[in-house]
């Protein structure tokens, strides 16, 4: 891959400061050795990035924690003896205890809080996932189009993005929810409308700079077709940025859903989400969903940082 070799070389220089000052010959030898090493082990940009990511402890721990939370949300409600929407008349507003197997207690309607938190996690994470996928897709298409076409189209499209930034988005989201209703998919749609601009900006910038890179010119010079240039040179180099900004988008999206739900304008009863659960502010009812939500947000932030360091070592 043309993009990976120069990066690899700079990187090795950073790791071996002793190379500096040894002289031209040593450098050339070093170059050849690295090339050979890279060839023999077949190290691409991605395996290099994976190695760097695996060395980042905070990101790894976050990834593990997030996996546990996700698995618990998926499997938990099947294993636990209570349903998320059925009342236990024997135990209303029950503090956490091992009796009755209400491990996290119950709310004032006697519904088991642990199961509700896990179901709420399913909803919050699903909303996060769906809204992220749609807004990332929109952002990539918008940004790549603006970057490729350029000129007046680019100026116009980016003007719209600037406009969206200046708007107090939560208010428009509230207006949309007021008008359209509070169905699950409408909440996802509303969040999508206001989360794609970052991605569009970043992808446009990246596309602009990639369009005039030497290796793209070289590919053009030896007669590679435009679609092949896009798919084998531009898209792989966009992917790094896209992956990083996707991990940054997820927590933002989950947070927006939680705020909407907290204000009573998002997910509706008896369905629940972490935002809805946080609204019911008795101490332990607040504590558990809030802790889950914050942990999830932290994890995404750390993973995002880790990915940025792994995929984009120059911009640290």
């Amino acid at each position, binding site marked *: 891959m043309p993009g990976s070799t120069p990066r690899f070389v700079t990187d090795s220089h950073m790791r071996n400061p002793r190379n500096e000052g040894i002289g031209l010959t040593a450098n050339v030898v070093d170059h050849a050795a690295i090339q050979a090493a890279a060839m023999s082990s077949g190290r691409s940009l991605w395996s290099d990035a994976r190695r760097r990511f695996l060395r980042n402890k905070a990101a790894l721990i976050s990834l593990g924690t997030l996996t546990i939370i996700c698995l618990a949300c998926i499997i938990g409600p099947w294993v636990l003896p209570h349903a998320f929407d059925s009342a236990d008349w024997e135990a209303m507003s029950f503090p956490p205890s091992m009796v009755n197997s209400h491990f996290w207690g119950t709310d004032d309607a006697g519904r088991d809080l642990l199961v509700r938190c896990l179901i709420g996690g399913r909803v919050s994470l699903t909303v996060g996932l769906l809204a992220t996928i749609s807004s990332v897709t929109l952002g990539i298409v918008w940004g790549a189009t603006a970057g490729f076409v350029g000129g007046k189209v680019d100026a116009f499209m980016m003007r719209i993005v*600037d*406009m969206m*930034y*200046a*708007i*107090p*988005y*939560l*208010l*428009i989201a*509230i*207006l*949309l*929810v*007021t*008008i359209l209703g509070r169905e699950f998919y409408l909440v996802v749609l509303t969040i999508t409308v206001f989360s794609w601009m970052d991605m569009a900006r970043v992808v446009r910038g990246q596309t602009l700079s990639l369009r005039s890179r030497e290796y793209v010119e070289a590919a053009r010079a030896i007669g590679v077709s435009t679609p092949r240039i896009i798919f084998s040179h531009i898209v792989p180099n966009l992917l790094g940025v896209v992956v990083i900004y996707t991990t940054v988008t997820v*927590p933002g999206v989950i*947070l927006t859903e*939680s*705020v909407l739900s*907290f*204000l*009573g*304008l998002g997910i509706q009863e008896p369905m629940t989400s972490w*935002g809805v659960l*946080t*609204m019911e*502010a008795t*101490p332990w009812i*607040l504590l558990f969903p*809030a802790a889950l*939500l*914050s942990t999830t*947000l*932290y994890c995404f*932030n750390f993973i995002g940082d880790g990915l940025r360091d792994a995929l984009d070592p120059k911009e640290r």
Partner: protein
Amino acid sequence: MWTYTLRRVFAAIPTVLVVITVCYLLLHATPGGPFDSDRKVSAAVLANLEAKYHLDLPLWQQYLLYLKGLLQGDLGASFRYADWSVNDLVAAALPVSLSIGGIAMVISVLVGVSLGIFAALRQNSVIDHFVMLLGNVGSAVPSFVLGPVMIIIFAIALKWLPAGGWHDFEFRFMILPIALLTIINVSTIGRVMRGSLIEVMHSNFIRTARAKGLPTRVVVLRHALKPALLPVVSVLGPLAISSITAALVTETVFSLPGLGKLIVNGAGNRDYTLVLGLVVLITVLTVTLNLLVDLAYAWLDPKIRY
């Protein structure tokens, strides 16, 4: 500078117009009229009502009338609160939001900038760690968690302050909301100030100032502070927008009768005209604020001239 100002003002107008238009059209696309109800009114009464609110006119004329009203500062009538115009409701709610938000903004700029300076000058000290911790808390603990936690600690457990409500600008009721908004904003301002001051302190002209033998206090206050404040100014615009989110949450958590509460209740009651009026009002306010921030930035930074 004047041409730049004019250009920025003219660039801001379309944004406001687009928001108003899109929201207005969305509102009209919703099914049902304002006078649909179970109680049947006679055709004559209905016609009179529609004539009073200009609902018998074609859409574009209604839109132009609405714009004309906006230009004269009239936000229209409320759907749900009979005999109240949106203006009346705003007039009652705005002072509450402005006093809370304004005081919180002033405190958080002062505290955030000072904390940022201390953190940057004494890296890895206690204050530095505190600022970084605050930044982390601000980014991962949402305001709707922090608010209830504060209520649990200061109102329920310690019984120092009221858990919420509002009583004629009595200061007791303002402390917790202001504290919540301040914590959220300080986390951002402190982090930005710390980062930019560290960067500025590494630049050449600071080294020169130090080499001249100036004491650190003079180096920081005379030379480093102004360029280091630039990123803080530029972050104030986005911060104003996120403050609106925070204000909605704060006013809900502490049940304050401000704009946020009004809009959340309006949305809950499906009071379309009220929500539209508030969205228009707050959009105009934020766009104006962003404009002022941009102009202040251009004025502070001599490198920016368009």
